[in-house]
């Protein structure tokens, strides 16, 4: 079974982002970029399926600017076999990304697509579900465990009340939650080897997809800040303040 793993290039999770003064967006110039952390988990899961003999080939896909090829290289260094870069301007919306991915799935015919449940830049949490919809495939979102059982895929999902397990008739789309696995670091020899692995470059037109945004970003602003309060000296003082001043006890 071939596994397709879409990966997104985003601002590194440890960077504190800044909103531009003119409210036109978030400052992205000279900011460290990395693979979306949920997508690292997706790459790791695909590699583990291959190591367990369930997957035969792992194809990493990124949709974004030329630099997104670096994100694909990271996936290749972790253990993916080859890459596909669909070159676009940054900021393509989840719906258009899902349409491009559908085109790639139609061409590549994977048995499983594993993606991060959301990207830590736009926090949309949509692409996997949309791709499953466009393909008419079942979806196992927010996965904390994935078991391939013949042509079925059993996915344990993190839901509001606890955990839910569903059986999906493959092919299927899985989106990763935090506790699915701990992604490995690429070793130096594997980073060197990844440089020789192939990356195909495509344009969205190759899949007949219009990437024009449907949402107009009117403005981007700083969130309201909370002013910090007071330090109290003891538990008794805390309880007294909560009761008499804040009125929440």
């Amino acid at each position, binding site marked *: 079974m071939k596994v397709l793993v879409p990966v997104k290039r985003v601002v590194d999770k440890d960077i504190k982002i800044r909103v531009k003064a003119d409210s036109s967006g978030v400052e992205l110039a000279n900011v460290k970029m990395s693979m979306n952390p949920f997508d690292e988990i997706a790459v790791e899961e695909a590699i583990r399926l291959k190591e367990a003999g369930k997957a035969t080939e792992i194809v990493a896909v990124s949709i974004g600017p030329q630099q997104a090829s670096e994100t694909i290289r990271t996936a290749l260094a972790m253990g993916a076999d080859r890459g596909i870069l669909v070159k676009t301007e940054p900021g393509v919306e989840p719906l258009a990304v899902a349409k491009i991915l559908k085109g790639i799935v139609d061409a590549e015919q994977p048995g499983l697509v594993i993606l991060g449940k959301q990207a830590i830049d736009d926090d949309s949490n949509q692409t996997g579900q949309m791709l499953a919809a466009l393909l008419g495939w079942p979806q196992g979102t927010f996965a904390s465990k994935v078991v391939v059982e013949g042509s079925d895929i059993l996915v344990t999902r*993190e839901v509001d009340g606890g955990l839910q397990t569903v059986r999906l008739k493959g092919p299927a789309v899985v989106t990763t939650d935090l506790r699915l696995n701990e992604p490995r670091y690429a070793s130096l020899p594997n980073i060197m080897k990844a440089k020789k692995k192939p990356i195909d470059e495509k344009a969205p037109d190759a899949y007949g997809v219009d990437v024009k945004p*449907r*949402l107009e970003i009117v403005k981007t602003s700083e969130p309201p800040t*909370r002013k910090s309060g*007071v330090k109290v000296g003891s538990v008794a003082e805390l309880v007294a303040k909560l009761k008499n001043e804040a009125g929440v006890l």
Partner: protein
Amino acid sequence: MAILLLAEHDNKALKDSTHKALTAAKALGSDVHVLVAGSGCRPVAEAAAKLDGVTKVLLAEGGPFEHMLAEPLAALIVSLAASYDAIVAPATSVGKNCLPRVAALLDVMQVSEIVKVVSPDTFERLIYAGNAVQTVRSRDAKKVITVRTAAFQATPEGGSPAPIEAAAGNNDPGISSFVGEELSQSDRPELTSAKVIISGGRAMQSRENFTKYIEPVADKLGAAVGASRAAVDAGYAPNDWQVGQTGKVVAPQLYIAVGISGAIQHLAGMKDSKVIVAINKDEEAPIFQVADYGLVADLYQALPELEQELGKLGR
């Protein structure tokens, strides 16, 4: 045309997140229909019919809807969509799972987790784990929207109940099935609707310490128990306790953060709480920057004292 709101429920009771998402739905248009999809869930429909501003309840009952799996639920919503200007759901795990599937089938770009309705086509939502607020205008004719429920007040019951109609259609594509679930059994309130929450972080050091130190205080306060991502990742607390950008987003009257440093992603899940208390022995912890009341103390001493002090208040 009207707004279709997907109800959140457990087949027995309507969940509070529905009441909150309804407040957002009412800001989009005056005619709100609530879809209750499930199994043996007529009491849920009856509860939804009583809510202020609801003009009709659609009840879809059947096996495939019992666990609200995305595939049959999305097919049902799409079959109803032609009559609606907007399809709205609370951003619960059901809403987040199902609604993007609906959006793609309708060729609509969803607006996820709105925190404010500026106008019927313009919304505010948070990006970068709440570090920026984006105002977006949807150009799609039909809107598909999930609602961050912590940002909206619950709609109360209104006057006379709305009519309940059966929603036709069971077009389960038959590609997914429910196997089982492990739901947390607790007599405590749910995190997303609790008035008081006490959460523990990595400093709790073990699951046993949650039981020994956090839970007795929670019992005194009638509080829900939460946890930081670090505590959940370390196995000190179950995943459904996680408060944060990728866990639950909460806004209780009182939020007590114990042994939580205050990572950005945790703050994104609780900084809209009315009153925030931080108990941490590191006085430089970022959590103190958002706390109304900070106590620099060792939690293993402070929590038993807190339990005692609350007891003195007759709790």
